[in-house]
């Protein structure tokens, strides 16, 4: 069904010949060991993707239709908007990243996933934390710090849950059978450490022992930048570095370029978040501008590596996973260039404090992270559940909807943000009139959000149908042993 190239991932990913002769059974065992925790996390992640997407559409409508659901404090724009970001980022983003990360660590290391019950427990508490966060924000208990709006009591719960999951990823990595680490594992390992670091640093400085004055703004803005640059993007890069060579059936072009790209990203990705003109010492925003410029180094290194890997190669016919991966790779360059450009003083004078930054974030989140995760999910779920996707049509709808929705939201907010900035910078235009020209673009972004929700419903529906088929085969039938044996044989042949 997937049409996936059958060459082993390790050969394609540039591993040694010894490793390329790995035992299929070890990979099969690694895949199977992930099934319960990964499917648990993925199902909840997709549910949050749909739920958060609906909240995002509600907040988007409110931007151009302020009377929409205006009577309730719980649904006022200033609460729905951060609640949607919280649900999408922590509900979908983190769970999906951890699920895919766990699978990649197990598979690339050819080791069974360890601590499955601990991961399930961590996942359950994580979902409880996200749920409390969403209701806390809607109830007015948000902290007032973008991306960290969840009430203070939620963050320890999230951190403990994350530790319960993350520690088993590290233990699985430690006991891997393939000792050398591939590029994807570098990014995953780094992201695993980066997130608790930025989360603890920001939470302790903003919520538990708040620093004084405008320093809060520096840390809050930095966290908003870092959670994208040091968590979402590295996880997406791990997925892309795994699947681009694998789907094209080629080894990665250069390990040296990959090393250079990784270390320059590790050095410079965290420098950002504070825009020029902010009421803080000017060197801070200058550092963020310079950090943006230096991010061109990993961008070029990663680009060259992917380009030379993919040049002249073609994926297997009808391989829909490649569509998601290719889109995410292109979106990565577009998002980085928009991000870096938007930080400069010349462009920032127009785009700062407009919806432009929301457009760039949408491209990072839906285009880079969401599409790479979707590609990975479509590949890994049949492997770990030994069940094929029930509907190819739903996958096509998901792909088309995600693509159109992401492009529409990004283009509308980026162009609308530029128009908003240009008109706001002309003091001869009254404020309301300046904003009026942005309204059609806000409407287009709402349309993009609706299309994305529809696409993600198709994604979730397909996953639920697959789970139904899988559970019916594995759990309910008295002859499940035979069914499992047949499925294992089928999947083993398609590794």
């Amino acid at each position, binding site marked *: 069904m997937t049409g996936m190239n059958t060459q082993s991932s390790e050969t394609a990913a540039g591993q040694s010949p010894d490793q390329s002769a790995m035992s299929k059974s070890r990979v099969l065992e690694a895949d199977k060991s992930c099934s319960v925790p990964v499917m648990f996390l993925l199902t909840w992640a997709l549910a949050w993707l749909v739920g958060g997407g609906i909240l995002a559409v509600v907040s988007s409508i*409110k*931007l*151009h239709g*302020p*009377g929409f659901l*205006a*009577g309730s*404090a719980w649904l*006022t*724009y*200033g*609460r729905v*908007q*951060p609640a949607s970001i919280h649900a999408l980022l922590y509900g979908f983003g983190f769970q999906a990243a951890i699920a895919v990360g766990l699978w990649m660590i197990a598979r690339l290391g050819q080791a069974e996933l360890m601590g499955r019950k601990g991961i399930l427990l961590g996942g359950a508490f994580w979902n409880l934390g996200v749920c409390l966060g969403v209701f806390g924000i809607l109830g*007015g208990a*948000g*902290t*007032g710090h973008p991306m960290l709006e969840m009430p203070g009591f939620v963050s320890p719960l999230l951190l403990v849950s994350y530790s319960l999951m993350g520690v088993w990823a590290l233990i699985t990595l430690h006991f891997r059978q393939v000792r050398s680490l591939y590029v994807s594992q570098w990014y995953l390992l780094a992201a695993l*450490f980066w997130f608790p*670091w930025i989360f603890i*640093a920001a939470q302790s400085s903003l919520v538990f022992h708040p*620093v*004084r*004055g*405008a*320093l*809060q*703004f520096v*840390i*809050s803005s*930095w966290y908003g930048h*870092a959670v994208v640059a040091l968590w979402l993007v590295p996880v997406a890069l791990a997925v892309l570095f795994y699947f681009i060579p694998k789907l094209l059936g080629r080894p990665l072009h250069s390990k040296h370029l990959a090393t250079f790209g990784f270390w320059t990203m*590790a*050095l410079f990705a*965290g*420098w950002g978040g504070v825009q020029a*003109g*902010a*009421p*803080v*010492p000017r060197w*801070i925003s200058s*550092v963020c501008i310079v950090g943006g410029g230096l991010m061109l180094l990993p961008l070029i290194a990663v680009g060259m590596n992917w380009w030379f890997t993919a040049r002249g190669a073609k994926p297997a016919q009808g391989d829909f996973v490649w569509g998601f991966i290719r889109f995410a790779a292109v979106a990565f360059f577009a998002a980085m260039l928009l991000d870096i450009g938007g930080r400069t*003083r010349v462009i920032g*004078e127009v785009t*700062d*404090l*407009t*919806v432009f*930054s*929301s457009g760039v974030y949408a491209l990072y989140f839906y285009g880079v992270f969401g599409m790479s995760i979707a590609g990975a999910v479509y590949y890994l779920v049949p492997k770990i559940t030994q069940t094929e996707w029930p509907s190819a049509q739903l996958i096509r709808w998901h792909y088309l909807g995600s693509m159109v929705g992401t492009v529409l939201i990004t283009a509308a907010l980026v162009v609308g943000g530029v128009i908003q900035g240009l008109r*706001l*910078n*002309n*003091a001869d235009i*009254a*404020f*309301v009139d300046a*904003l*009026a020209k942005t309204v059609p673009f806000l409407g287009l972004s709402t349309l993009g959000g609706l299309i994305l929700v529809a696409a993600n419903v198709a994604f979730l529906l397909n996953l639920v149908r697959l789970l139904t088929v899988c559970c019916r085969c594995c759990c309910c039938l008295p002859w499940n042993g035979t069914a499992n044996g047949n499925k294992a044989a089928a999947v083993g042949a398609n590794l």
Partner: protein
Amino acid sequence: MAVTWYGMLVAPSRQMGGQQQANVGPGNERYPIPRLGPAHRGAEVYRSNGCAYCHTQQVRPQGYGSDFERGWGLRMSAAQDFLFEETVALGQVRMGPDLANVGFRLTDEAWHYAHLYNPKSKVTGSLMPQYPFLFKEQPIKGSPSGDALVLTGAFAPPTGVEIVPTKEARELVAYLMSLKSQVPLFETPLPAGPKQDAEATASSEGAGNAQTNLALNR
């Protein structure tokens, strides 16, 4: 990781963490002054309703954007202005006007109440949402309440009914009225030009009156 941590957290903390009140004006007055009472609680209403998702509280430097020309402030904002803010709400998007000096620009409390209840009653074409949950609708008993909103035309309540602000609305308006940051500072003096007059005006209590001629909707 350590380099980023030092650059983005430790170094700014070392520079800004020890900030103290400044002596300003001819009388060496202390600036800023912590908010007290309803204005202090109003900051919590502002935070819990996410007002900062549409409004900024930062006047950008002269020549960078049009904040000065729009009359949003006589000088750019400085870190000093936010010294006593419990939750700094600088904001990241301007779907509504900047509020750094709204306490100077819009000095009529009744205007704020009506605007919060239904923004279109005061600003035609406004994209701001309504906040009816900050108000109570009640039957008029005898004579109308002194704090009932004055709404006319299509925005007027039905006959025999009046709209009065809740405690949260009063606190929020008290907070908005307290947003004033035009005192000249060493790091952000008033721009050249009308400096002398503006400086004298901004330092005094009469600053609000001097600013009322700024357009409401700019």
